[in-house]
């Protein structure tokens, strides 16, 4: 925090793309899409802030959360520009719709790093997981678990996708279908407004009643929140114990369910490296350094965006210890509450 931070009207040097320096520091904007999913304020934000202050102790991170509202996010980009940030780390609510805001930032000489979701418009760098890939991994895990029990077409499966208003949900769905179509019988499929666990519960209950609870051989749930509602519905409806159920996000509740055997898998997106990438890229760009990625991506408006893509990881009972626990994503104490303690022990987590 130096002269710029002290406030007062913007000096012309603060905007217009002049490079900053480590001694004085500069402002980095961080825009996250929502708070209904645990990860954003639990991991993404603190990791990025920690890493930024590691790479540039005098830099300041200005944070905003858009509550799943693209218009609000656009306003937040404007605020960032008013606030004289030099770089924006942007996790778009609507990757496509944010393009015009990205252009506006570009016009003002502010650099934009797309974080987690590949935003449209003239972005300068990208770091993320591949969302279609996430869907594929969910599908594969589900298929494997079903196959382990016999003929994958011996009964119907139920698919419960995410919110139709979330573009990521479409990607997950696409990825999962690319694996499952033809291999299994999809008995019922739902899109769930707001990723609502209650709604997912109602949908699953309906599906089990319609298809016969004892016939269903697997359930695809697009994320862990919904998987929670579904797991309960499976129990109540009398779906066979151990019937496969997917998830995503490696939420604490899901890890516990996996240990207890009411959920089969989740997708762990190692946020730490992702956040570290974003922080490093932001500081580098702010200092005017050239940045390089593990490759490049094309978002439709720019074709060679330097990108660092991280592989998501499938988490099952077997690798909880080596993934989320090892990364410090969740501690053993957090996971192994009294309810789960014995399951922890048998899975070798302690």
């Amino acid at each position, binding site marked *: 925090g130096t002269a710029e931070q002290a406030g007062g009207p913007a000096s012309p040097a603060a905007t217009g793309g002049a490079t900053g320096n480590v001694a004085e520091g500069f402002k980095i904007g961080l825009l996250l899409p929502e708070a*209904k999913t645990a990860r954003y304020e639990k991991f993404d934000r603190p990791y990025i802030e920690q890493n930024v202050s590691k790479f540039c102790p005098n830099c300041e991170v200005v944070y905003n959360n858009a509550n799943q509202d693209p218009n609000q996010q656009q306003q937040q980009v404007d605020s960032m520009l008013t606030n004289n940030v030099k770089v924006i780390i942007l996790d778009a609510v609507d990757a496509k719709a944010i393009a015009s805001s990205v252009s506006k930032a570009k016009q003002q000489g502010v650099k934009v790093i797309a974080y987690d979701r590949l935003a449209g418009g003239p972005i300068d760098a990208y770091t993320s997981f591949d969302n279609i890939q996430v869907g594929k991994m969910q599908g594969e895990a589900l298929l494997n678990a079903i196959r382990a029990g016999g003929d994958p077409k011996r009964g119907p499966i139920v698919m419960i996708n995410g919110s139709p208003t979330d573009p990521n949900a479409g990607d997950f769905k696409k990825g999962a279908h690319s694996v499952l179509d033809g291999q299994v019988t999809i008995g019922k499929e739902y899109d769930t407004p707001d990723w609502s666990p209650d709604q997912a519960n109602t949908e699953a209950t309906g599906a089990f009643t319609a298809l016969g609870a004892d016939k269903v051989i697997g359930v695809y749930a697009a994320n862990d929140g919904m998987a*929670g509602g579904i797991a309960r519905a499976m*129990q109540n409806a009398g779906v066979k114990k151990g019937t496969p159920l997917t998830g995503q996000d490696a939420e*604490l509740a899901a890890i516990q369910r996996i240990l207890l055997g009411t959920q089969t898998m989740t997708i762990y997106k190692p946020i730490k490296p992702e956040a570290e990438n974003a922080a490093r890229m932001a500081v580098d760009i702010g200092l005017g350094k050239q940045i390089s990625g593990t490759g490049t991506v094309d978002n439709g408006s720019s074709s060679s965006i330097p990108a660092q893509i991280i592989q998501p990881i499938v988490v099952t009972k077997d690798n909880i210890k080596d993934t989320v626990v090892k990364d410090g994503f969740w501690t053993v104490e957090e996971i192994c*509450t009294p*309810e789960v303690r014995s399951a922890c022990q048998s899975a070798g987590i302690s």
Partner: protein
Amino acid sequence: MSPLEPSAPAGPAAQAQVDPRLLVREQGFAGYLGEFKRRVRGGELGSLPVVVGLVIIWIIFQSLNSQFLSPQNLSNLSIDIVATGLISVGIVFVLLLGEIDLAAGAVSGACAALLAVLYVNNGWNPIMAIAAAVVAGAVLGLLHGSFFALIGVPSFVVTLAGLLAWTGLQLLVLGPNGTINLPDAGLVSRLTSTYFSQVIAAYGLAALATAGFFIVSYVGNSRRRAAGIPTRTMGDLLFRTAVLAIVAFGAAFILNKYKGLPLALLIFLVVVVAADFVQRRTRYGRSIFAVGGNIEAARRAGVNVALIRITVFMISGAMAAVGGVFAASRIASASQATGQSNVLLMAIAAAVIGGTSLFGGRGTAFSALLGMLVIQSIASGMALEGVSNSVQFMVTGAVLLAAVVIDSVSRRSQKASGRA
């Protein structure tokens, strides 16, 4: 002695005074039928039109999917209505005042979060945790009510501020870890997964309700006769009892064909009946209706308007918390999504669909039950079908409208005939 007494004739004289314009209905069944026809024409059918709407919805969904009316689905339905239905009972109180509580959903979410944190993270006894959650709901309601009644901020604004603030509180309470799982075998989860599977439970309840209704009506009637004021005919009384018996035993029969009487349903029914009792049989309830009907008249009659307003918002807050407990119980977890999304709108819609006026002074706790049945039947029917989201939204909207149109049309003829 009131100054009116001296020249007031004794009871029996008053009895004799029957207005010749009052159309007395014939005795017996013919009279009942005639009265019914008159009511249909006059539109004074109470909740019958919505019940008809509900039956039509059931017939349609059943014809689309034969599982719809299966004991399993109906049993699930009867549990699915509970969480939002409980919130809706609180909303009915607020609507009777002619006010609105936009914060009910957020309060339910925040209190569910509190419950989960106390119970799971802090290891509280579940009963204590539930009590704490409900008290917290009442306190939030107290806040709303005070700003509204004492400072005069419109309830819409107070509770909108509450909606935002308690959503924030919910996030804060849950902490960064998000969803908290409730133990499957714990008391809270069992609230919605316990069934009284003994056949006698459901039938016993049905019998109790029927007998209770008959006895209360009969005794009331006798007292009226003794006091020399108009009474219902015995035929009428028996007819009503019979209708209740058919519904109650029918429901018991169906529930017994699945897992038995669900605890959650039992609790919900008890709450609805208790709320109805408070609203219609106590001075407090009468005061709520009075404030909702004409606040100035109530004030001049010495009703403590501020107290009524504050306590009603406390009831709404507490009921929201109870609803939140059941919502958490249903999916055995509390998360940032509990009470969010359209829980609030559905709770209000249930009350309105069930016949409670948004403008105050008219309604009953039973509308929460009836309205939730309509709403949840649509949701369940759609879930059985598994149609695409866009179609689902549109059908839900259309069916909701259709369910109320019948009611509105009959009310319109009522309005045309000068009432309502």
